[in-house]
């Protein structure tokens, strides 16, 4: 017993930090009802940094150390992970959970560590004047809501008045994000909006889909995550809802979500903020340096999936921001504050993506002091069940900036007033 205790003590104390690395924490979730979506993202995020370490010796000559911490998509564990990793010199947090992001916004702002909630989190964090430490480029939920409506407008030749649109959403901060925008857009374009909340974890959706069957909305938009996606798509197939009228947000857009429904999911549409598939030059390097070397994260079977690519994309943006920070400050071993400067000066162009082996992987964008949200470009992709592949069916297009910018201004002003923040002066 005594020996066991000694061993445990040594094990706990042995976890002392190794300094002089670039530390990227990965608050992942490989367990629980959201694991199906959490695993590929975490794998992609980890593999990209492994690739940088193996191929380039890190970023700017500095090795990268990835600390993984399991959150289970649970905010309390997320906070515990944040507290346990922030002392290690963590450069940027990407919690992949809107609930955890809401927790971290005040904490990280006070501690001076940037948070990048890529396509999730608090939408009004796009206003860099108020949210100095929080970034959500390249697109946010309100852009997503507008993209979905834009797609419906396109299909209907620009007129959707009198159409019925239903929003099936995860009954949490995440799912509630698009409601304001959809309501504003409903006033502008004249469609009727029905709200159908689904409670955590989302396995039980019979009543919601019964209501859809009864009310026959023309379009269903979904804000789902984890097991909720699979169930919703299966339920839609069961009531024979026309799949091409069913549009998911980019988090309801992975292979894991559509495969269980088989042929029933054919034609399901979802938004995309990065490209899909494994036909990019970087995959050669990934296979050579990471997979074949036996260093792939997790089971190593997620390469090329939508969410794996998104994990790659998130890691790529973080690595590029770190490079930018090294450039600005002329040091290799950057601090979180310097990382923030790098993120704020980040510029992604077609040429830079090409150089990284990821041509046309995502939209071109530049971050600025006032705009932490990027241009909010998005595309629509469609599931082909026979080929088991996602196909982009539109270009990366803009969202309705008139409506969204006003809402962001409003919401961030409310946050600033609540928390006594004087907006920064950005020129």
């Amino acid at each position: 017993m005594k020996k066991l205790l000694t061993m445990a003590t040594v094990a706990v104390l042995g976890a002392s930090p190794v300094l002089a690395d670039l530390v990227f924490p990965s608050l992942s979730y490989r367990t629980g009802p959201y694991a199906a979506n959490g695993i590929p993202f975490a794998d992609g995020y980890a593999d990209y940094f492994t690739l940088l370490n193996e191929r380039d010796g890190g970023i700017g000559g500095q090795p990268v150390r990835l600390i993984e911490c399991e959150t289970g998509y649970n905010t309390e564990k997320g906070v515990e992970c944040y507290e346990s990793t922030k002392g290690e010199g963590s450069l940027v947090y990407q919690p992949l959970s809107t609930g955890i992001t809401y927790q971290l916004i005040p904490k990280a702002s006070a501690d001076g560590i940037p948070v990048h909630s890529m396509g999730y989190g608090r939408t009004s964090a796009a206003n860099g004047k108020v949210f100095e430490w929080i970034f959500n480029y390249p697109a946010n939920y309100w852009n997503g809501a507008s993209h979905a409506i834009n797609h419906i407008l396109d299909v209907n030749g620009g007129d959707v008045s009198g159409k019925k649109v239903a929003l099936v959403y995860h009954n949490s901060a995440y799912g509630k994000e698009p409601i304001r925008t959809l309501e504003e857009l409903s006033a502008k374009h004249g469609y009727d909006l029905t709200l159908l909340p689904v409670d955590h974890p989302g396995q039980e959706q019979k009543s919601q889909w019964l209501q859809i069957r009864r009310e026959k909305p023309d379009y269903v938009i979904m804000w789902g995550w984890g097991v909720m996606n699979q169930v919703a798509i299966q339920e839609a197939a069961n009531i024979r809802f026309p799949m091409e009228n069913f549009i998911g947000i980019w988090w309801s857009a992975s292979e894991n979500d559509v495969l269980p429904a088989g042929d029933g999911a054919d034609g399901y549409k979802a938004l995309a903020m990065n490209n899909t598939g494994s036909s990019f030059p970087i995959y050669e390097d990934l296979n050579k340096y990471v997979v074949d070397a036996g260093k792939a994260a997790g089971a190593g079977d997620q390469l090329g999936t939508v969410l794996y690519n998104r994990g790659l994309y998130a890691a790529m943006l973080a690595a590029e921001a770190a490079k930018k920070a090294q450039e600005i400050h002329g040091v290799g071993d950057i601090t979180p504050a310097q990382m923030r400067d790098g993120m704020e000066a980040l510029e992604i162009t077609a040429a830079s993506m090409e150089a990284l082996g990821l041509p046309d992987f995502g939209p071109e964008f530049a971050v600025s002091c006032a705009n932490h949200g990027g241009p909010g470009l998005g595309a629509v992709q469609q599931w082909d069940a026979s080929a088991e592949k996602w196909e982009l069916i539109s270009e990366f297009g803009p969202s309705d900036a008139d409506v969204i910018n006003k809402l962001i201004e409003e919401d961030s002003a409310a946050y600033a007033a609540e928390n006594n923040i004087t907006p920064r002066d950005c020129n």
Partner: protein
Amino acid sequence: MFYREAGDFKTSYVADNQTFPIAFDRYRYYVVLAVAIGVVPFMLNEYFASAVLIPFLIWSIIAIGLNILTGYCGQVSLGTGGFMAVGAYASYKLMTAFPDLNIFFVILASGGVTAGVGLLFGLPSLRIKGFYLAVATLAAQFFLVWLFNRVGWFYNYSASGQINAPERSVFGFNVTGALAAPEAKYLFCLAFVILLGIVARNLTRGKLGRSWMAIRDMDIAAEIIGVDPLKAKLSAFAISSFFVGVGGALFFAVYLGAVEVGEAFGINKSFLALFMIIIGGLGSIFGSFAGAAFIVLMPVLLKNVMVGGLGWPTDIAAHFEFVILGGLIIFFLIVEPHGLAALWRLAKEKLRLWPFPH
């Protein structure tokens, strides 16, 4: 040898009735208090405070609350998560409606509001008991969570449905919000734990506590000897809910800072509280602390050993956490069905006879 009553002479009724009749126990109690107040705050780092100690203190309050109802009065409740939510939302509404009100009184008032709600949901206990009462309190759990999710007034119509604790301070030190120092948060929670711990201990030793235990042991017999079941059951519900409400308010305002009702106060919180008192020991204040410590500390310890120390992948560690925790719960319940408190009592009895057990 040193742990015994002999030689410790009581010269007044007050001394005879004190909480810890054995001198050694009394000194231990003072040492624990002194360490908690005087030593721990100086050794605190932020991780230890916010991942271990603050949740432990808050869960202790909640476990004591549930123990009053379930352990002392015998009324099974699965509504703890819902009552915590009432405390949290009451404190949010009070904080935003009366910005000048001291956070200390906000927390106490939130407990008061929760006591009222608990009283309401305790009414069915007068007619039903056992499993049926558990189902009625389960209804409270689901109804309350649904209510706070559905009605915008409770979260001040914020777009995300989340509530965020504004900054509040005690004696000039922030205890809520992102800028609060871990020491301040810890001491603030500790103050409530000490205060409510003493109140609970003395309530359960007094007339009220005895009437609860009489109801628990056999309600008909209790009624025959003159215990009013209405008063006993409803007071247990109200006081228990007060504790749980204070715990919920601290959970939201001090510990998390931002809360979403479905996730933070779901049914799993009710089960967690119930596990705490079952593992710790039903009908014991010490058991509430021991159970809370077990449930809060064990996962953090296991995680740090497996991921931090042994370098295991996080997903395997997370699965093992469940296995080990579940295994330990089964082990404890088989070895000592009356919980950690019974082990503690046994240890004390052995210690009294030591070193001459015959």
